[in-house]
């Protein structure tokens, strides 16, 4: 069975169906059902996946698409791609459920009513693109998905967003296009210089040997990914886009779309251009560490909840990039796990913020206060989401952050120490936000700020359950990630880390 093609096709067909049905309500229900089907299929895929398999990409399908240029429709997954596809498949139904009324124009600060059906159809199209981009094993196909993802997201921000939606949407688009064009040039150059007559990723590994060429091509890919992720200083589009996007779209934008950037660094930059990656490592590490501290400090100074969450993500993307370029097993696996955990954690934060904004009609922190008194459940979920944002042990984000830091410390102790200061700053930005919005005397009477309803509980419940379960028992996910990361790291040909004591022991034997 062509699992991956099915996974991509189901949401696309679902989107068509959603846009054809008559009533808005039916459209929503159909969208939710389709996304749940995708989730079940992804579950089956994960179940059938064999982490220990010798095959690099499982469930692989390769068809010729443009034979003249060796462009293929090639899909397949390793552990890294699998967990990111799973992330998308879990988040989309949650986002659909959370966005139930976002396009209705009923919330306290909703934009004018727009087509409800279109919104949910766009969500499903986006899901197909997200699965496609992680599944692509053909570099050109990856590029096509990479760019095509922009379109549904652009419309979701530009049509369904907040007051500044147009500005934010264009900024998002221009930044992404700029990066995308650089990558297009690099993709074509890679094809021409490699001279293999194919865009298939596995066949392009280790082909480019010339150091200078590697550096140029690396730069093309890397800048596109650094804009996407985004890394400091390419980040300023994100706060605008995330703040203006409806909460559900912000979840997918920051939780999944941006991960394509860090995924691309791990998959393409490291493997296709190992020498250039090593050459640029000091630069990337500096950018990552600056981003961690800078993003956190700017987050502390924010007065808008959604912008604050966006800046925390910039800090977190710094951690992921650090983990990728530290090039140790622990850091690489940690970075991959971080991509997944950050999706759930930031997703939860954006969604709770969305619930607040739906009630009160403002994303300004100063407009809230004492919510805990009138809506304890809402405040409680906000706190748990926040605690996962500050990587509290027992929650999933801790495991990944710890692995990134300890893995980075193995090779770059100074960078790791500076990055670790992020744990203190994270406590400041999260708990200060919680203090300002949730504690103190309540500013709203209970009817303005009702507690979570059942739909919202069903949105937050699964997210929190995943965050806690993976906090105490990350092994199943890590067992999938580890072999894939090991392969990636070994292709860079870098001396693996050995502890000082073991080194001597090994030498003595």
């Amino acid at each position, binding site marked *: 069975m062509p699992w991956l093609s099915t996974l991509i096709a189901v949401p696309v067909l679902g989107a068509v169906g959603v846009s054809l049905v008559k009533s808005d309500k039916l459209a929503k229900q159909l969208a939710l059902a389709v996304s749940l089907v995708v989730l079940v299929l992804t579950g089956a895929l994960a179940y059938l996946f064999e982490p220990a398999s010798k095959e690099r990409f499982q469930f692989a399908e390769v068809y010729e698409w*443009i*034979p*003249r*240029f060796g*462009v293929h429709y090639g899909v397949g997954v390793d552990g890294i791609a699998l967990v990111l596809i799973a992330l998308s498949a879990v988040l989309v139904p949650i986002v659909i459920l959370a966005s139930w009324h976002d396009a209705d124009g009923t919330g306290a600060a909703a934009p004018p009513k727009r087509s409800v059906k279109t919104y949910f159809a766009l969500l499903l199209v986006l899901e197909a693109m997200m699965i496609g981009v992680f599944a692509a094993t053909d570099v050109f196909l990856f590029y*096509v998905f990479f*760019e*095509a993802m*922009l*379109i549904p997201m652009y419309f979701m921000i*530009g049509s369904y967003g907040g007051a500044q939606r*147009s*500005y934010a*949407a*264009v900024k998002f*688009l*221009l930044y992404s*296009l700029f990066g995308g064009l650089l990558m297009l040039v690099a993709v074509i150059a890679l094809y021409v210089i490699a001279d293999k007559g194919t865009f298939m990723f596995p066949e392009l590994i280790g082909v480019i040997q010339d150091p200078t060429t590697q550096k140029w091509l690396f730069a093309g890919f890397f800048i596109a990914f650094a804009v996407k992720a985004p890394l400091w*200083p390419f980040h*300023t589009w994100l706060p605008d886009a995330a703040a203006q996007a409806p909460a559900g779209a912000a979840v997918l934008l920051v939780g999944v779309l941006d991960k394509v950037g860090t995924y691309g660094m791990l998959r393409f930059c490291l493997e296709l251009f190992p020498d250039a990656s090593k050459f640029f490592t000091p630069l990337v590490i500096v950018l990552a560490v600056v981003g961690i501290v*800078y993003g956190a*400090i*700017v987050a*502390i*100074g*924010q007065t808008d909840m959604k912008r604050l969450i966006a800046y925390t993500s910039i800090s977190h993307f710094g951690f992921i990039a650090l983990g990728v370029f530290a090039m140790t*097993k*622990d850091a690489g696996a940690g970075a991959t796990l971080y991509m997944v955990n950050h999706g759930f954690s930031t997703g939860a934060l954006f969604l709770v913020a969305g619930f607040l904004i739906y009630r009160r009609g403002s994303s300004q922190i100063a407009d809230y206060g*004492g919510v*805990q008194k009138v809506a304890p*459940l809402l405040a409680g979920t906000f706190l748990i989401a926040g605690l996962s944002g500050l990587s509290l*042990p*027992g929650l999933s984000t801790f495991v990944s952050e710890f*692995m990134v830091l*300890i893995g980075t*410390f193995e090779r770059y*102790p100074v960078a*790791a*120490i500076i990055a*670790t*200061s992020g*744990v*203190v700053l994270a*406590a400041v930005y999260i*708990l*200060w936000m919680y*203090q300002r919005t*949730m*504690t*103190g*005397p309540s500013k709203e009477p209970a009817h303005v700020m009702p507690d979570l309803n059942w739909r919202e509980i069903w949105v937050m419940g699964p997210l929190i359950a995943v965050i806690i379960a993976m906090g*105490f028992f*990350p*092994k199943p996910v*890590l*067992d999938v990630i*580890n072999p894939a990361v090991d392969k990636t790291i070994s292709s860079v040909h870098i001396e693996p880390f050995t*502890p*000082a*004591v073991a080194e001597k022991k090994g030498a003595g034997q």
Partner: protein
Amino acid sequence: MEPAEIIQHSGGVIGVSWLMVALPLLGAAILLLFGRRTDRWGHLLGVAMSLGAFAVAVAAFVQLLGLPEAQRRQGVRLYEFIPGLADMGLLIDPLSISFALLITGVGSLIHIYSIGYMSHDPGRRRFFAYLNLFVAAMLLLVLADNYVVLFVGWEGVGLASYLLIGFWQFKPTAAAAAKKAFIVNRVGDFGLLIAIFTIWTTFGSVAFNELTGGAVDGAISSGDASQGTITAVGLLLLLGACGKSAQLPLQSWLLDAMEGPTPVSALIHAATMVTAGVYLVVRSGAFFEAAPTAQLVVTIVGVATLLAGAIIGCAKDDIKKGLAGSTMSQIGYMMLGAGLGPVGYAFAIAHLIAHGFFKANMFLGAGSVMHAMNDEVDMRKYGGLFSVMKVTAATFMIGYLAIIGFPLLSGYFTKDGIIETAMEHNQILGWLAVVGAGITGFYMSRMVFMTFFGKRRWADDAHPHESPSVMTVPLILLSIGSVFLGAFLILDNRLMRFLAPAVGLPEHLPGFHPFSVPGLTTLALVAVGVVYAWFRYGAAEVPRLAPRGSFLTTFARRDLYGDALNEALFMRPGQWLARFAVFFDNRGIDGLVNGLAAGIGGTSGRLRRIQTGYVRSYALSILFGAAVVVGALLYVGNM
């Protein structure tokens, strides 16, 4: 004697010792998940889970006592936590079981007391959920068999502490205090994390059984680890310990933490959590014993804090803050002991256990007084309470006599042990600890005289009464411990010999010298403190409003300007930095990009038009462009 090897557990209760963590965790989960439906019986479930954990701890302790010394360190591996890095595993040994008994024993008494204390609070069920969560996290901390799991418990107790300090979140002061406690603790955790990283990169393991004294010494002698690395590990661990245990320079959160309900102050901020730093130092003895510099710093921090806490305690009129200053100070003594090697460890842990009893005793006593006085905490509005609440007063005074080191009571034995051991290492530190004991005599007597004796200075609407027996019975039990525990643990070096398999045993066991010069001097100074306090606060009238006081009083009242210093050094520059960074990000980086875009676009007017007007056309043109590219490729491809 070196510590014993850790062996695979021999079954029995030790094999299911994870129940100690699981039971209270389950309690917390039930109470939080099922919410209001558990309001009626939630507190009972909380107590039952805590008592259940206590029963498991006692049974494990008995099992351990029945084993030969060499088998008294048993590892219980549960599952692979982070593959390749750390297992979820527990270590049952004399050190961890001592803590487990203290946490679950005193913890259960405080749970029971809270049934009465929180009976009128609408959030009582949530309170018990958090208490259970705390007990579970604290047990994970002390039972962990490696640094990563220890860290999970370490931050878990931080979370519980945060939740409980801010239990009355609607009070802005409580919310601020909770946040402060968490953030200051995170500064300490930063140190602990980097210590763990360094240990990992040096030894390739974070498990206690790989990090024995032999392993550390071996790494130094073979040149795998430099002396500097080991010292750094010690200092970083100490930073973590300072945060959790409110030692200088990370002490400032503890006084604010008194915003939490009083049972919380007794359990978390006196008896157990704040002593976790001492546990960490003792558990990491292998590193400290190989790093004399780090050990010296531990003792200096301990002495500085024991004096600072004592001085702060002298000037506080808020009974809970007075006790908090005292807690800081007593933990300073423990830290001093923990910096003195195996002999010191035993005295530090003995003092820790005894302190757990007498300080919890006094905090709960203070809670009983507050309960009677409409939550008044200002001792200047107490006075003469002895006659109206005899049980509370009597038990509080037993705790008081124990802490000042009244002969034959608990503190007398444990504190004296620390002072004597310190003398042998460093005369200056030893004598400073003696001075601290004298100050303790003064400020604790001041507290007792102001509260229970002298004229009644009550508010008009105060009608004090004795608390119900659900509160006084725990007080009585704790005061019994305050009387006898010290003698029991110290005489015959009982605790030292019990702990030996976990922390090692010195070659020469110390004897008990009740009439040594430091011992007698301590007693004399304490007596001076008591008498001076009597003249100032017992015999003389205590004004209802605090007098202005000297420069020194102000210094102490302001917590030695610790907060002012933090504000000047970190908070204000931090806020300024955050504001500047926001400005820089909006105007600097983003401004540059927007300006560049405007420049490329020709005029800023056009940019504005792009931003507001023709947005959709741009997106459509991209879509169109992409379609053209793909179409062209297909066309060319098929040619």
